[in-house]
């Protein structure tokens, strides 16, 4: 094992967790898991588990963060100390701050902020168990939690990460593929229009490989979106 020796696929094209190159990990979503919050969702994605809770809209304090013409999203992403094999020291860290910012930018593109001037909407994301793709789980769970809270949005952001390992482009990277691979491309997609609201890249990809990752992400986003809608509908009893 190690950077040089990791083989993401066997001779039959099957990955370590039994998937083919273009298959996703299993995803489960449940809403309303934090009864005291205005909206909430728990997502299990492979071995990842994340919970998002939404409060608001509420008065934006301190005064200096208020925007006169619209609401602001106050997004906090945090990984629990027990979520990874190596303990994460609780408290501020740059990675959490960055992920909080990109999550906020992604969600602000769909939330109808102008409806609530001078307010803020709190979005709290907590990662309970981490196994590659936690920022994607966080954004996806936050979208469901916002819908659960009744916050008006023009679409729901779905986030997935594709990448490359051993020169092969793979959908929905797991932990060894992410750690030992050559590139990873998390994206945030609006399923109704296939617009991109979030994109980061780590590593090297040729134009061809980039396009393939993009396509994988869009396809996976549509599959996950169906699960998100189902979770919301189940919470409210579905069509009658």
């Amino acid at each position, binding site marked *: 094992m190690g950077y040089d020796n990791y083989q993401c696929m066997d001779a039959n094209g099957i990955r370590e967790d039994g998937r083919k190159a273009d298959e996703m990990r299993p995803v489960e979503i449940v809403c309303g898991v934090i009864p005291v919050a205005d909206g909430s969702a728990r997502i299990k994605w492979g071995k990842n588990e994340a919970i998002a809770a939404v409060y608001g809209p509420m008065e934006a304090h301190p005064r200096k963060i208020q925007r006169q013409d619209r609401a602001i999203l106050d997004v906090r992403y945090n990984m629990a100390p027990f979520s990874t094999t190596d303990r994460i020291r609780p408290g501020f860290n740059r990675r959490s701050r960055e992920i909080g910012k990109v999550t906020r930018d992604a969600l602000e593109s769909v939330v109808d902020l102008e409806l609530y001037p001078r307010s803020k909407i709190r979005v709290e994301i907590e990662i309970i168990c981490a196994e590659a793709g936690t920022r994607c789980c966080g954004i996806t769970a936050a979208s469901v939690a916002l819908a659960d809270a*009744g916050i008006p949005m023009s679409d729901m952001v779905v986030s997935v990460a594709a990448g490359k390992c051993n020169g092969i482009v793979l959908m929905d990277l797991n932990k060894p593929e992410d750690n030992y691979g050559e590139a990873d491309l998390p994206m945030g997609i609006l399923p109704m229009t296939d617009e991109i609201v979030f994109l980061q890249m780590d590593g090297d990809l040729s134009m061809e490989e980039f396009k393939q990752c993009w396509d994988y992400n869009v396809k996976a986003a549509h599959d996950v979106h169906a699960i998100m809608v189902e979770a919301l509908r189940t919470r409210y009893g579905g069509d009658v």
Partner: protein
Amino acid sequence: MSEDSTPPEQASGAVRLVHPGERIGGHDGAEAGHGIRRIDGELVAMRMGTLQENGQTVSVEPLSSRYTPRAGDLVIGLVEGMTNNIWFMDIGASFNAILPMSLAPWKVEFGAVREHLGVGEAVLCRVQEVDETHSAVATMKGMGLRKLKSGMLETIPPHIIPAVIGKGGAMLQTLKDLGDCRIVVGQNGRVWLDGEQDGMREIRSALKLIRDTAHLPGLKERVDALAGE
């Protein structure tokens, strides 16, 4: 503004749930109502809720909402703080409402606000006016507006208040008979109950049933069944 009818259901009895971003087809020429926006010529649902068709307008009745104050609304506020001449009240909206000394029913000395209304107390008041940023001014000058000294408060989402009141107040009467209590429904989703413990508990169960199933048809029957037990 209170409506006293149960939420409208489609003629066939079917209820269609929509999610944010869902395209609403088959309504050419319809107007976009609450919770719906026209994007690139298509009607798009902006919230999680049930689709409502009222004549030419299509709207979404939300399944989850926060109270937005309107002038004239009767609300139950909880005092959160005060200065020398105003109280700040939590009315469940995006912003606290203010109750100035001049609009209180007592003669209050400047600086003596705490003697009349302390932090955590509940007040029945009316929204006097709302500015363009949704900040509200409340008043206690009016018939029946008072500090609530006894009883308990239950919270329900504001958009199901019409279901709690019912057609012509029918559901509200059923609840009053069920628990033999006084009930006041605030437009901000706070319901004040005052009576015997057992009665209040019965009414709270009924309110929970309404809260969970108001969007499904047959609500009256379900509450009557609960009352009959």
